[in-house]
């Protein structure tokens, strides 16, 4: 009797597992298909979209002509370098600011902390691109847009301001879940408050710092609005501007 029951139980488990796998496979296919479509379009020798028929899902005569065109006929590597400079600067500033702000919000009793948290949270909903015009006016009157390198400094500061708001909040929430006892033990063992932050809390916050760095990188790397507003010279173009140029 128990044997029959377990057999039935096993069967039910198999069916459950099967249904889960089918649903997961469909979801994965939906998520992966656009990327696959972009890849087969990129190896298409004719400059058209790959047609979606079952036969054309495997490209017939793939060529790397498009890649050759981008890498050697267009200054792709220059644009890439510019984008990476902006992204690296943004990541560096965002990680430092977000960690310090998050640690302070999580560990100290600052007067008006609730108000500050609400402000930070509300700022998160504010569309970043809407700040392009005020930032432009501000930077122009400061003379930041005159030189190439200072334009980059301005852009990095603007991106960092945009990304470090939400990142501080993320770090704060993450640090709230780490018990204070670790730092207190470190203080008893003779570390300073600052030492406890950087030598105890920082290594434990590595996951959220990696996440914040990824967010900042993607924010700066994929931005179009601010780069379009600030960058004037062709040699300073980023990848997004280059892509728009190629598309039109």
């Amino acid at each position, binding site marked *: 009797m128990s044997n029959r029951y377990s057999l039935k139980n096993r069967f039910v488990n198999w069916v459950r597992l099967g249904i889960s796998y089918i649903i997961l496979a469909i979801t994965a296919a939906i998520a992966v298909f656009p990327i696959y479509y*972009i*890849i087969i*379009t*990129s*190896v*298409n*020798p*004719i*400059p*058209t*979209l790959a047609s979606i028929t079952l036969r054309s899902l495997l490209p017939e005569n793939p060529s790397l*002509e*498009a*890649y050759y*065109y*981008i*890498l050697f006929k267009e200054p*792709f590597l220059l644009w*890439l370098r510019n*984008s*990476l400079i902006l*992204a690296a600067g943004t990541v560096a500033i965002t990680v430092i600011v977000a960690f310090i702000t998050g640690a302070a919000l999580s560990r100290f009793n600052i007067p008006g902390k609730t108000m500050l948290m609400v402000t930070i949270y509300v700022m998160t909903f504010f569309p970043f691109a809407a700040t392009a015009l005020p930032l432009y006016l501000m930077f122009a009157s400061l003379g930041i847009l005159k030189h190439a390198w200072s334009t980059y400094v301005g852009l990095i500061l603007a991106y960092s301001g945009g990304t470090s708001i939400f990142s501080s*909040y*993320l770090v704060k*929430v*993450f640090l709230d*879940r780490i018990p204070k006892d670790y730092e207190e033990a470190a203080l008893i063992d003779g570390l300073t408050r600052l030492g406890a932050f950087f030598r105890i809390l920082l290594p434990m916050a*590595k*996951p*959220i*710092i*990696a*996440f914040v*760095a*990824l967010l900042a*990188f*993607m924010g700066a*790397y994929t931005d179009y609005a601010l780069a379009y507003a600030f960058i004037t010279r062709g040699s300073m173009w980023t*990848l997004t501007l*280059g*892509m728009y140029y*190629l*598309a*039109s």
Partner: protein
Amino acid sequence: MNRATLYNVLAAFSVLMGIPIFAVFIAFQKYLVQIYAMGGVKA
């Protein structure tokens, strides 16, 4: 090449542009997985 929209060039551009993001993700993967293992970032 003509000046009509070069879809294959744009697609190749997208693929090449995605590589750095992918690289950064791979570099941080060890830590990012820890976040998901903790039950996500609760805001």
